């Protein structure tokens, strides 16, 4: 048998761009120093004019959508962001932030740590893209029929909660009341669109099975209706929760390590399994 000759390593000579392209931000250099910007525009609008005349929410929307929002769009986005500003001290991401704080981790790392955990798939940022695609696929279908179809196929071997569809499921065995309230409040606004409206009907039909909205589902519905692209929205969901995550983490940063529970030895059980 002849010895196989490996393919020689050669460059693909891919055509990389010479300059990074952006449609978001334009910086004009100063006359004296080409590295120093003297003005900046976001999608064509002067940054200082935006500071003076528009809200943070409007500029956030502008960054990702390239146009300023209408009053209705701005209002529903702002209310969504307030609703999602803090996952609360029991969420794994917040607990990660608190753990970093009480563990005397550099406070600058508290937010990246928490956001990384908030990137998980369980009712967190990692599920947003799939949830938005779920709305895109189903928002023209009958929510009652789909809810009954999906909920009646509950697997028998579920341990813990069951996600019946992206953005919907059980929470500690029941319906997440705060997520339902968030959806209900947002659905009364003029900015409410077809995904949120459809989701309300879908959740209503799921309630008989003790299933309902997740916060991630509400966010995905509203962001879909606002025209954000699915790939963008996991990161937005992380961003919306950042203030609460950081606040909880830094609250513990100046406290002693005994300020959070440490599982007692008698409650630490080693139970090996055959892997």
């Amino acid at each position: 048998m002849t010895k196989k000759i490996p393919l020689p390593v050669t460059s693909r000579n891919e055509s990389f761009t010479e300059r990074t392209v952006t449609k978001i931000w334009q910086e004009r250099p100063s006359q004296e120093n080409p590295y120093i910007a003297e003005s900046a525009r976001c999608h064509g609008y002067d940054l200082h004019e935006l500071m003076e005349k528009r809200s943070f929410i409007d500029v956030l929307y502008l960054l990702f959508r390239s146009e300023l929002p209408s009053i209705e769009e701005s209002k529903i986005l702002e209310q969504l962001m307030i609703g999602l500003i803090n996952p609360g001290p029991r969420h794994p991401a917040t607990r990660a932030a608190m753990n970093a704080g009480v563990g005397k981790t550099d406070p600058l790392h508290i937010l990246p740590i928490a956001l990384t955990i908030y990137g998980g798939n369980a009712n967190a940022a990692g599920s947003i893209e799939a949830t938005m695609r779920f709305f895109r696929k189903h928002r023209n279908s009958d929510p009652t029929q789909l809810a009954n179809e999906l909920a009646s196929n509950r697997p028998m071997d579920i341990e813990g909660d069951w996600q019946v569809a992206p953005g919907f499921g059980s929470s500690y065995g029941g319906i997440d009341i705060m997520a339902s309230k968030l959806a209900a409040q947002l659905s009364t606004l003029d900015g409410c669109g077809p995904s949120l409206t459809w989701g309300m009907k879908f959740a209503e039909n799921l309630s008989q099975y003790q299933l309902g909205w997740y916060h991630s589902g509400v966010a995905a519905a509203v962001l879909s209706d606002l025209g954000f692209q699915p790939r963008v929205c996991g990161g937005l969901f992380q961003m919306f929760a950042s203030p609460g995550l950081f606040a909880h983490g830094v609250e513990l940063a100046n406290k002693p390590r005994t300020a959070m529970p440490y599982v007692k030895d008698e409650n630490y059980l080693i139970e090996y399994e055959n892997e």
Partner: protein
Amino acid sequence: MSKNTAPWDEQRNTIHSTKGGWVVGKGVFNHGYSMMDDLVGKTSYIQVMVLNATGRLPQRKLADWLEAIHICLSWPDPRIWCNTIGALGGTARTSPVAATAAGILANDSKMYGAGTGIDSLNFIQWALSEKQRGLSTGEIIKNECAKHRGKPNIMGFARPIAKGDERVVAMQRVQKELGFPIGQHQALANEIDAILQRNFSESINIGGYISAFLADQHYTANEVCRIFSILVSSGVTACYTDTIKKPAGTFLPIKCSDIDYQGKPPRELP
């Protein structure tokens, strides 16, 4: 009506660990091993890393193979995407932990690094099952290429930037020196490699080599992903170390005009 919250009530204030832990005054235990008595000084770091990731303590020679792979996949070249982040950490004056952690996170990618492991291993396992079902290697490739408009976009084969993969050659040498035979998955991977070389001038990449080898060693895709969590770390740290020694902000500095703005022209607020 009170809901059944037993699955959560049973876990409150209690940790049920299947891995081990520190029993103060008695020792530190890991899958039944006493870490200080059974592992320290008797096993390599990589062996314990695999034990932690999979629950199984591998033979020393497999750990040696894994150590060689880690060398192959972490270079001090700041043009590699995760390494760029390490270098940017240095130029921005982050801590080495922050820069290295950020680089590690970057390699959770669908294009390179640890993030490609699951798809790559799943592919070779699926391909072997297809082969055992009666398909020829050529048919498997043809079917796979059909999913990508005729292009050989197969996980574990071809690579960004360059054709060919010097790391595979090095690892084949290491494998031989360590005495690992070619298993079923590797044999199939080599067949795919030969056909791709002949028909497309593409070849197996290091991810494909790793996946086939570890599939033959009976590791699952999820286990491989866990084993390789920090795969790129040392190259990222190297690139951080290079730029932290230089003035802040001098790693690939960018003039305003170096950015190609293609967005909306200046406009007045409504």
